[in-house]
């Protein structure tokens, strides 16, 4: 049991770490605000979730476990909300996402975005 | 009169002028009352000074101690011969000058007369403080009060020229007193541990002569009121003041406070013996001699009468400084006597200059030809004053010059003897022509004008001082006794 749990935990931690790195790379490399935000929110939710799950498997006492679960819940609540709010704010202030244009090249959407 | 102890009298000489200020300020609205207050105050002060003189002659020691600021630093006063001379001169001349001023200021229609009389009283009060101070610290305080209280008098006219003169006046006097005089006082206190005027000096045996010499230099330059060159510039600058101010303050009170301080310092801080040992005494003596001659030469070239008298004062002050630096008994005696003699002589001359100004509106020597026929009394007084300054009988000035000469002889200072001789000749050259010219007939074709003298109070004042010059020749005894007792 414990060995399995340990391996699983480490696997989760490593994957979480890799997701973090990929998220950061995405943050740097993606072309516009919204795609970058996507990369960031992956780090926020998935990577953090993975790492927390990995840590839970190693939790020595139930109280630590409970705390970790609470952290997870909060992260899952706040991360997406923050992402959502950011995207809205960006749209609100007139930033347009890049979309594939007719020539297949990314370009800013010319149509006004409908509604909020 | 029992309650009027000598101690109280001494303090009253300073307090009465201060009280008079309050009276003057309160009664400022009415000219007559205001001047009456001044006159009454000066009469009281004169009475007090004479009372003190009697006490002093009776040999009663009078000491007053106000308060002690720090150990060895106190505000206290003591009756002593040199101070007595100074106080007598100042007391007599204040009264005279008040009379003179009343005539002068009224006929000249000066403004701000209330401020004038108030500051005048303050200045006189501080002169008594200087005269009776029993230590250097007290003397310094009143010395500074004197400077500050005379500034408004110098700038009385309020013109740009007066401001400029006032600034020079204040700049040099305050500057030297803080930079050198105060420094010297501190140095003395540090070396000797006391500032009390003591017969024979305060410096402990074995004090380095280098330090003493340096301190002496600081004192001589620091007492800017003694107007030794090159710190004499304030005196001619202060001549922008109204004539009574020039007369009393810049011929008598202020400058005499300066040389008086130097005499005190030389006699009671250094002591004549220590003074003799110092390496800088001779150098300063030569400087004083040079001052005498140079100032006389400058005086010869001045056409403005008051300026000429001012340079003459510079020259005469250096006599007294030289008398102190000779460091002999006769030198000190002569110096102290010269304070009084020169005071009466010079104030006569200034009074006359002021009288000429208010009556004939003439300020320059070259304009004075023939005015003797218009103002015979004034110009006669001028002649007497001139003789006294030169040092010729039958005037008091001859006595003090005699003692200075004998002091120089005692000290084997042939240089100073030469200086005194030469300067007498120069005095003759720049002063005597004025009264003589005045009695020349006016230029051809000009009708001899009618007699037109100064206002009566002024005329009385200058006659009185001229008379005093003569009286002091005949009765020098009391003055001599006082002066001779200084070093005993």
């Amino acid at each position: 049991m414990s060995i399995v749990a340990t391996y699983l935990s480490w696997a989760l931690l490593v994957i979480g770490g890799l997701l973090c790195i990929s998220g950061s790379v995405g943050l740097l490399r993606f072309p516009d605000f919204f795609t970058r935000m996507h990369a960031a929110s992956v780090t926020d939710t998935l990577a953090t979730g993975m790492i927390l799950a990995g840590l839970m498997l190693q939790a020595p006492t139930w109280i630590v476990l409970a705390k970790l679960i609470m952290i997870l819940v909060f992260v899952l609540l706040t991360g997406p909300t923050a992402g959502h709010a950011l995207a809205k704010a960006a749209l609100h202030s007139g930033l347009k996402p890049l979309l594939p244009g007719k020539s297949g090249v990314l370009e800013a959407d010319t149509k006004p975005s409908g509604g909020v | 009169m029992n309650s009027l102890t000598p101690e109280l009298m001494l303090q009253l000489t300073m307090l009465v002028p201060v009280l008079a200020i309050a009276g003057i300020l309160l009664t400022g609205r009415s000219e007559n009352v205001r001047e009456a207050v001044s006159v009454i105050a000066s009469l009281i002060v004169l009475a007090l000074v004479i009372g003190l003189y009697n006490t002093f002659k009776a040999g009663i020691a009078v000491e007053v101690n106000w308060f002690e600021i720090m150990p060895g630093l106190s505000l206290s006063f003591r009756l002593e011969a040199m101070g007595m001379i100074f106080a007598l001169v100042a007391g007599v001349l204040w009264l005279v000058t008040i009379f003179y001023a009343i005539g002068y200021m009224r006929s000249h229609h000066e403004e701000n007369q209330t401020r004038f009389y108030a500051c005048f009283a303050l200045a006189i009060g501080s002169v008594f403080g200087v005269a009776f101070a029993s230590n250097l610290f007290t003397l310094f305080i009143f010395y500074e009060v004197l400077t500050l209280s005379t500034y408004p008098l110098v700038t009385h006219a309020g013109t740009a020229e007066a401001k400029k003169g006032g600034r020079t006046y204040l700049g040099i006097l305050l500057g030297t007193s803080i930079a050198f005089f105060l420094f010297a006082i501190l140095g003395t206190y540090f070396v000797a541990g006391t500032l009390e005027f003591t017969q024979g000096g305060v410096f402990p045996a074995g004090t380095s002569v280098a330090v003493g010499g340096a301190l002496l230099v600081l004192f001589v330059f620091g007492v800017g009121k003694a107007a030794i060159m090159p710190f004499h510039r304030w005196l001619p600058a202060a001549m922008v003041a109204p004539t009574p101010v020039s007369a009393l303050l810049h011929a008598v009170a202020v400058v005499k406070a300066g040389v008086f301080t130097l005499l005190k310092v030389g006699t009671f801080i250094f002591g004549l013996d220590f003074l003799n040992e110092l390496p800088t005494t001779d150098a300063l003596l030569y400087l004083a001699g040079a001052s005498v001659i140079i100032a006389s030469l400058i005086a010869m070239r001045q056409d403005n009468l008051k300026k000429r008298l001012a340079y003459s004062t510079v020259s005469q002050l250096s006599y007294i400084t030289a008398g102190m630096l000779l460091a002999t008994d006769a030198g000190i005696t002569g110096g102290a006597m010269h304070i009084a003699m020169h005071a009466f002589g010079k104030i006569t001359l200034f009074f006359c200059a002021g009288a000429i100004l208010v009556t004939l509106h003439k300020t320059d020597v070259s304009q004075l030809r023939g005015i003797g026929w218009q103002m015979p009394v004034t110009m006669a007084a001028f002649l007497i004053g001139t003789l006294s300054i030169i040092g010729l009988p039958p005037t008091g000035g001859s006595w003090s010059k005699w003692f200075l000469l004998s002091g120089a002889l005692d000290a084997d200072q042939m240089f100073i003897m030469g200086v005194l001789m030469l300067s007498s000749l120069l005095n003759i050259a720049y002063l005597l022509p004025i009264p003589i010219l005045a009695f020349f007939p006016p230029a051809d074709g000009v009708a001899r004008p009618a007699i037109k003298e100064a206002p009566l109070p002024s005329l009385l004042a200058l006659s009185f001082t001229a008379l005093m010059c003569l009286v002091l020749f005949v009765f020098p005894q009391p003055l001599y006794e006082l002066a001779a007792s200084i070093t005993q």
Partner: protein
Amino acid sequence: MIVHLSVLQVIIPLIAAPICLLLRKSELAWAFATLVAFMTLAVSVALLSQVMQSGPVSYELGGWEAPWGIEYRVDMLNAPLLVLISAISALALLASRTSIENEIPENRHTFFYIAWLLCMAGLLGITATGDAFNVFVFLEISSLATYTLIALGKDRRALWASFQYLVAGTIGATFILIGIGLMYVMTGTLNMADLAQRLPDVENTKTVFTAFAFLIVGVCMKLALFPLHLWLPNAYTFAPSIVTTFLAATATKVAVYVMIRFIFDVFGFEFSFTHFPLQEVLLTLGIAGIFVASVVAIYQDNLKRMLAYSSVAQVGYIMLGISFASQTGIMATLLHMLNHGLMKGALFLALAAVVYRMGIAQLSQMHGIASRMPLTMAAFLIGGLSLIGVPLTVGFISKWYLVSAALENGWWPVAAAILLGSLLSVVYIWRVIEVAYFKPVSESTPDVKEAPAALLIPMWILVLANLYFGIETSLTVGVSQMAAADLFGGLR
């Protein structure tokens, strides 16, 4: 209650400040603050007499003995300063209500009094404490309150001045923090007395050297030693006049006190003057400060700025006293701290009255003002004479001892420099006197009345104190002498 005096000194204003907020009404706040300031004054006087009778007072806060807890330690060195702070504060508060009428918007008055009390408590706390870190905490209380008080000035430049002071002050405080940290790392203690015991063991280390350097630089920033004074002229010029009065009379003095405490008590005389070129540094900067600041002061038209530069110059004198490294020197410094507080208090209060009537203290608009405001200008005159060092005023006494100390060391040129510095102060004070007294009232002179009694009374109390302590010197000189003797006695 008598055993609690030293802590009451600080916590009375400290606790009164939030109560003022509860009072809300500015009149009430003023009345309460003034009452508190006078209570504090009473406490400080009692404390001083206690110290004079029975020696240093030590108080363990929280009942924890030093070095584990924080200790208040009041001795001859800081007890007089406590009296000065609370006295000036009480007098200035008395005048403050009238003075800020025209200078601060009505709805900020309550906050003004709270900030004042906090500033005062901070200064008292710095002075009373015996714990190095506690110094930092109370330094920040007083500093933050000071920034607020300065920023309340009417002119917009007050804001800029306050910001400059905030940056300079925080850098200074951080330097002090670094210094305390380095001391702590070498000794493991924060209590001053304990530090004094443990520092000699490690005094040859580079760390302690650096700690000392940082502490001194940080404190010099606060006390505006030339050339770290750049924040001061603006702050004093644009702060509300009554604030300037309070700060000029007390704030820099407290910083000087901290410096003396660290130099002589914590690090010890030996270390400060042998391992560190303190003497040379303070001497050079002190003299340079006296001359540069005095000359600059001569050219100012705004009188508050002129006196601000004069304060920088006076700090130079105070530093000179320390640099003499002798008992007389330190005594002159202590004496000058107290005396300078008295004279600057009187002078700035006079200016506060001028500002109250005229809106600004511009020399070019003050022709003949003495005839309009005779009592105010008379107070300025006497304060000015005291600043110059004219006999019979407090200024003379401290200059006297300063010069004596210079002569004792055989430093004749320094003594001459002190006197020349006085000469410069004659020039800038006399400029004012000449304009106010001897220039006729001109067109540009506003038609003003004499200042109200609320300003005149505190002003003249200070002026009379200037004269009284200039004549009856046994208290001030005696106290400074004892303090100086303690500082030197404890070291040998």
